[in-house]
């Protein structure tokens, strides 16, 4: 196998506000970097080809598939994962609260990717229609819920976030 200074790279990445320095192989996916190198196993790996959305994280604030990004590309970037969503250990983010209240998850495998996608969506679209929520969810597969309770949860979260602001 080739091994030289173009196959291993030093990277500095900010994840949920904490800075991490690591040496990574070129081919290491960001999803595997988060889970295996940093131990942040909240980011789930489903299909590993961008179809399911379970591995969605925020890359400089923008939802992206961590399975379609190499860890080396995250050098100098800010990553947000589900571990950084709750404001404190004993408090949930309004989205998490709403998912719990509305039964927006069953097995929970898809949930981290959906939460990160919806976090960015609600920041841009604080008062979405149901149709807009369904469209925004189109890149995340859930095999348990039939989506109805997820949509309910996102709409409820949007409302509680609006109320918290006003």
């Amino acid at each position: 196998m080739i091994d030289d200074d173009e196959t291993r790279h030093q990277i500095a990445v900010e994840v949920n506000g904490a800075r991490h320095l690591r040496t990574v192989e070129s081919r290491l996916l960001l999803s595997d970097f988060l889970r295996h190198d940093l131990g942040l196993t909240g980011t789930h790996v489903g299909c590993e080809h961008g179809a399911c959305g379970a591995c969605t994280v925020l890359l400089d604030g923008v939802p992206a598939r961590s399975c379609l990004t190499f860890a080396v590309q995250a050098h100098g970037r800010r990553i947000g994962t589900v571990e950084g969503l709750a404001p404190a250990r004993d408090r949930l983010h309004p989205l998490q609260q709403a998912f719990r209240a509305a039964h927006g998850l069953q097995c929970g495998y898809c949930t981290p990717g959906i939460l990160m996608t919806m976090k960015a969506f609600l920041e841009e679209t604080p008062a979405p229609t149901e149709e807009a929520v369904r469209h925004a969810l189109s890149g995340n597969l859930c095999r348990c819920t039939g989506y109805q309770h997820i949509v309910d949860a996102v709409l409820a979260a949007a409302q509680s976030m609006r109320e918290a602001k006003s």
Partner: protein
Amino acid sequence: MKPAPFRYVLAESLGHALDAKAAHRDEARFLAGGQSLVPAMNFRLAQPAVLVDLNRLDALAGVRAAAGAVRLGAMTRNRAIERDAALARAQPLVTEAIAHVAHPQIRNRGTIGGNLAHADPASEMPAVMLALGARLRAVSKRGERWIAARDFFQGLFTTALAADELLAEVELPALPERTGTCFLEVARRHGDYPMMGVAAVVTLDATGRCTRASLAYCNAGDTARAAVSAAAALAGARIDDATARGAAATAKGEIEPRGNVHASVAYQRHLAEVLTRRALVTAAERADQA
């Protein structure tokens, strides 16, 4: 489901990227948004020895006005194209079609240049470029050249780009007065590759007769396909249900869909016929209002 080892080169300038590609030629691939290349690498369908990452080349990104045209830098994210209000006015076909390209998270990363250089015949954007008569600028250490969209897409995942060339930008000529466009597709789910898609462009004269039309299709052959005869036959005609039906019947025979597990060739041709009729009528209505 993990990529094979490769050397990673972060291009610090366009010259750096071109040097690396010239040195490694077919052994190297450019990494743009990575939304098609990385899945292929995860499956080990693609095993490039070298990846040349273009993601820090801000000069390759952006929508710019040019004389009588608009230019899309190759590294412009599909999401940025989707949200560009000026582009939506100047080239509504691009805006209408790009919303069908996968999902928001994919469009956040995916780029127009990566999409076009990947040359997936099922993708929407090559068909849009054909319909609009776009041209593409290829650059290498040897210089640069412009390639017409009809010459750029040469086959399944195959373009006119040489081993040392990079797709730098695509230029869309301004739409003539009284021109309307329409993009329609049928996919099993929104964001999936379409079973069939059509891009239609119609220009009318002051009396409402068609002076020029173009039709191009995705998932209708080994590359994006234009229906040249069907479009040419519309010149001088009023586009109504009857003339649109005639063009659609011709178009469905001009394309060469391959069929797949989701749609037989006969069904794809049927979709092409229905979508062509609807797209032509809508494009003509929009031209009349333009």
